[in-house]
Every structure is written in structure tokens, then in C-alpha cells.
């Protein structure tokens, strides 16, 4: 009986622990992916194109000449 209740407790603890681990690993996974794939300090920034607020073309190379802070984001 005692054995059963301990087993039950263990199962409950595991059930509680698994989702928490999954949540932590989600952000951690994103972070790890970013760390391994995104350009690292010391590497040249790759070039890619977008456009400015007036619709004219913009490329990452356009930022050369000054120390540049780039932050990505959207409206949400």
C-alpha cells in the first residue's frame, strides 16, 4: 500500500515535471538555435534586402560606415 502511494506520488511528480521541462526547453531551444545558426561576433554580417518606410530598397550593406544597432520585431 505504501509502495503504491509512493509510486503514485512519483507519477504525479513526473506528470508535473514533464510540462515544466517542456516549457523551459521551448525558449531554450529557440535560444540554442539562435546561438548556433545566427552570425557570431567577429563574423561579417550577411547581406539581404528589404525596403525603407518610403518603399525604396534597403540592404544590410547600406548600414556600413557607422556602428549600427539592428533590432528585429513586429507589431505584436
Amino acid at each position, binding site marked *: 500500500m505504501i509502495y503504491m502511494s509512493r509510486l503514485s506520488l512519483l507519477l504525479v511528480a513526473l506528470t508535473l515535471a514533464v510540462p515544466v521541462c517542456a516549457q523551459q526547453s521551448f525558449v531554450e531551444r529557440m535560444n540554442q538555435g*539562435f*546561438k548556433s545558426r545566427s552570425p557570431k561576433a567577429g563574423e561579417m554580417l550577411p547581406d*539581404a534586402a528589404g525596403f525603407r*518606410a518610403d518603399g525604396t530598397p534597403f540592404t*544590410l550593406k547600406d548600414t556600413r560606415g557607422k556602428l*549600427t544597432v*539592428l533590432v528585429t520585431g513586429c507589431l505584436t
Partner: protein
Amino acid sequence: MRNVPGLEAIYRDYKNKNVQFLIIYKSIVHPGTNGVIDAFTKEERLKQLALAKKRLGTTVPIVSDSLDGDIVKALESAPNAEFVVDPEGKLVYRKFWHDPAALRTFLEERVGKVDNPTKVADLNMKLVFPKAGAPRGLVEPLKMPGRMAILNTAPELQEDAGAKDEAPPFFAKLLAEADRKAMSGGEGKLYLGFYLDPVYQVHWNNPAGGLSFSINDPNDAGFEPVVGQTPEYKHETDVDPREFVIDFQAQKRGAKLRLTVRYTICDDNGKFCMPVEQHYTLEMTRKRGGASRAGQWMTELVGDPMSYDKNGDGLASRDELPKQRAMIMLLHYDRNHDEAIDKVEAALFYDMTRMEQAKSRAVKKDKLPRARTGGGH
């Protein structure tokens, strides 16, 4: 972009110290959050940019990624990452999630400290939400039936600029998802959500008839068209998404279908009302890097936000939320931007049905009650 005030403060302190700042506006991570959905055209993206500038109240210059996300792909960027690049184009600093305090420390070391640094509180920045032309929250969000994947969809845009009659823009935009069975050609579930794009400032014209859709397979004459129609709404207008979850069988894996949608909208300023018919290619294949219906995955990740309301005041505040998840939870649920989640905000996205399903599955399997996902203990 919750940390824009922090970035704004640094921008004001360093913009005249030979440092340039750019926000790269990218595709929407979670369509539907704050009513924003991804642009179909460059013109729409430019309108979103203007909206972002107004809403965020920032003076930091904003540029846009391409519609295909070329910049984000090249940088392998996270949703809200930051990078500092030296004048020669070499990366000197990067952060997975924009962190104003860490960025300021970096710039202080690299460029030098400033006298009297700008404080966020001094900026008194508030998010500005344009007044909606019609009420929100009158049509209850649908409960999602289970795990679904975002489908590849493509609007049939008017390519010929010199066409005689200019086609109306996609006032309502489609987000389609399907479960594994439906994607493999078997009997499964298909989610269709039509979201009004806020850049157009229009609302549904309910008395003129609801929204209807039909799905055909242009390559299979034997495919029985699938049709759907919203119920009759008693209220005249609103701006809520029109959503459907239907039983669906595409007959074959990865089928390329054609969806036609019809609806009527009115301009918020009373200039026009018009019926619209538009078409999409609907591919029963998983979209890479796509973003699911707002809040859907959050349900799985964190469960009921109100379970974190420790003092019982009806608000799950930043202090009460688990530290590691507070930022991401507020990002998704906190629609009035008061740094807390209230019951209405929680109910909007929290999908009780799915949690109940998960619980009942667990009971059957383990004969034990299962904790809600993300109980936050």
C-alpha cells in the same frame, strides 16, 4: 516589440554619437494578436510600418524586411533579436532577445557613457491604438480541436497593374491550418480564419450577409466542393475574425486546392461598403516558419493564465507570472498593455477544450489526474 521604450531611451542617448539604429520590421509571429496579420503586398507592409510607428510611438527609424523574410533568414534571427555591427560590417554583439540594459552596457563600453542617461519613465511612451471603427469581441473565438499545422496559402493577387478594373485589396486575410490526418489526405479537421486587416480600417457588414467560402480542386473534377457560411449575426457590425473548423478530406496528400471567399465590408469612415470575392491557392502542406492562430500554442505552453493570479485580484500581473515566461505571456495575452492579464484577456485565447481533452486522455492512460500544462508551481 515590448522593449521599444528601452530602445528609444538608448537611441536618444547615442544617435548623435555616430551610432545608427534600425528596427527591422519583420513578418508577424502570431497572426491575430492585437488584430495584426501578415501583409500580402509591399504596399500593405508599408502601411503596417506606418501603423507600427504610430502605435509604438517611437522615433527609432524602422525599415522592413522583404515579404519573404530575407533579412531574418540571413540573420537566422529570433523574433526580437538584436545585433550590433561595426562600420566595416562585422558583427560585434548579438542577443537572442532585445535587452535594453545589456545593449546600453555594451554601448557604454564601446562608445562611452553619456551624461544623464535617458530614463524610460521620462519618455512617458504609451502604446497608441487607433480607435476601431466597430466593436471587437462580439463573436466568440473558436475552440481549436487539437494540434494543427499552418498550411501554405497564396492569395491570387492582381498581377496586371494595367488591368481595367482594379481589384479590391484583401481586406480579410486567410489563415488556414489542418491536422495531420487532413494533410495526409484522410478525414481530418481544417481550420479557416479570415482576419480583417487593420491597415484598411474596415468592418464587417453583417446585414448584407455573412462570409461564405468554397473549396474546389481544379485538378480533380470529382472533388465535391466544400462550402461554409457564417451564421446570421444579430449585431450590425464588428471586426472579429470569421473562423471555421470543418471536417475535411482532400482525397490526396499535399493537394493543391482553390478557395473562394465572399464577404461584405464597410469603410470605417463611411466612404464605401462593398461585396468582395477573392481567391486563394490552398495547399495541404505545412508552411515552414509559419505562425499559428494567436494563442493556440500558448495554451499548450502555459495553460490558463489566470492560474497564476496568486492574490485573487482577478489579474495575473507580471510579478505573479513565472519569471521565465512572464514576457512571452504578456506578449500574447495582455491586450490592453497594463502589464497584467485579466480574465477577459485570458478567456480570449485560453482554449479550455483542448486542456480538457488532454486531461481526459491522461486519465484514461494513467488512471491518474494529470496536472494542467504549465501549472506554474
